[in-house]
């Protein structure tokens, strides 16, 4: 049995706090690396990137390092010399939602720490600044997503009327998603409600016989909800042998797809359409 000391580290570590820790500066480093990896995991980075970025910083901070990643939690261990005296920090995956912007900024931070040999305090300060990154404005995302789904409808062979129907139903459904997530509603319920609203609105094409391709409008109106990034991440983790994370991400994506399918079916049922 190894003599690993698990530090009780608060979310934000200051220098004075780390000084009182039995592991010395190792506690601060473990805490920083665990916070970093938890945020990177939360923003939708693949396991190989989490491992590579964190290891890169650990090497620059002159510690040996190992990481254990699970879908909802992760554990970081750092040590010098004998691994029996490793300091371990455990974190919950940050609930920040998928963000490529955070992913890019955190990756850049890891290179800054590695190449410029930043000390721990500077690295923590920069990390805290990255944590405050604002997400893309809701209006911009709403318009771009609606345009994207209308374009998608075109790719599936829809005419311009179908594109217009999809644009409107996506805008309504996606706005509902933003509002429900803002009010901290369950993400599965949110997906179900949004796909229901989009399906009901886009069924109008069928009911009022608008355009030549109403079935394509109906079929593509909910595609903005397909969790594409978790699906891709899941296979990427599978290829790098992170099977548990891969399965976790895959199940997340399948459950959301099931919720949106149920919402779509319910919408069609209410509007008297067969699927």
């Amino acid at each position, binding site marked *: 049995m190894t003599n690993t000391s698990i530090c009780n580290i608060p979310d934000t570590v200051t220098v004075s706090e780390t000084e009182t820790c039995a592991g010395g500066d190792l506690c601060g480093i473990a805490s920083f690396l665990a916070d970093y990896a938890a945020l990177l995991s939360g923003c939708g980075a693949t396991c190989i990137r989490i491992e590579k970025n964190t290891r890169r910083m650990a090497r620059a901070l002159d510690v040996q390092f190992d990481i254990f990643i699970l879908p909802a939690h992760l554990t970081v261990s750092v040590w010098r010399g004998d691994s029996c005296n490793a300091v371990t920090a455990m974190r919950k995956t940050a609930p920040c939602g998928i963000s490529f912007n955070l992913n890019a900024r955190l990756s850049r931070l890891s290179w800054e720490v590695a190449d410029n040999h930043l000390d721990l305090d500077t690295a923590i300060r920069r990390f805290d600044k990255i944590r405050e990154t604002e997400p893309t404005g809701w209006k911009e995302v709403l318009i771009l997503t609606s*345009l994207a789904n209308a374009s998608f409808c075109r790719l599936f062979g829809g005419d311009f009327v179908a594109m217009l129907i999809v644009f409107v139903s996506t805008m309504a459904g996606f706005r509902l998603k933003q509002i429900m997530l803002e009010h901290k509603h369950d993400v599965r319920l949110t997906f179900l409600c949004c796909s229901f609203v989009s399906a009901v609105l886009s069924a109008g094409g069928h009911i009022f016989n608008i355009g030549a391709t109403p079935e394509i409008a109906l079929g593509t109106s909910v595609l903005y909800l397909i969790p594409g990034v978790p699906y891709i991440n899941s296979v990427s983790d599978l290829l790098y042998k992170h099977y548990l994370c891969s399965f976790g991400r895959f199940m997340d994506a399948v459950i959301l797809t099931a919720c949106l399918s149920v919402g*779509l079916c319910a919408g069609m049922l209410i509007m008297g359409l067969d699927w």
Partner: protein
Amino acid sequence: MDSIFINIIEDGVFAAIAAIGFSSISNTPRRAYLMCGLIAAIGHSIRYVLMLPALGGMHIIAASTIASFVIGILAVLFAGRIKCPAEVCFFPALLPMIPGMYAYRTIEALISCLGHVQEQAFSHYLYLLAYNGLTCAFIILGMVIGATVPVFLLKKLSFTATR
């Protein structure tokens, strides 16, 4: 011939808009929009061309894998220019190729399957469940393998883009 060319261009343009829009949901940095759109347009047009009946009509799984391979190479080569990791470039570019329609038709078939007790109807929906589910799974598998192979081959370049 002209109409095919226009269709290819149209496919690329709409794929680019779809990629930028869907990636904005995942907070893609603005500086990456143009690059993601361009890579998505090239990738999706390649898939469109490969699947054209006049050119042999390749199966959607093989066509998606080849198109994703090209997307992966372009993403690894150009990610450094916008100081973003390679996946920030190739994930949005892959999003328009995600077989969403197959994914939710799988679940629809499952619901229909459970709602029918007669053998013939049950077998039909079971067939739809298997067909849509397998096609969806293998398209995604092919896409990610296709896009990840360049990351493996050009590992050094892939993980130093944000340096």
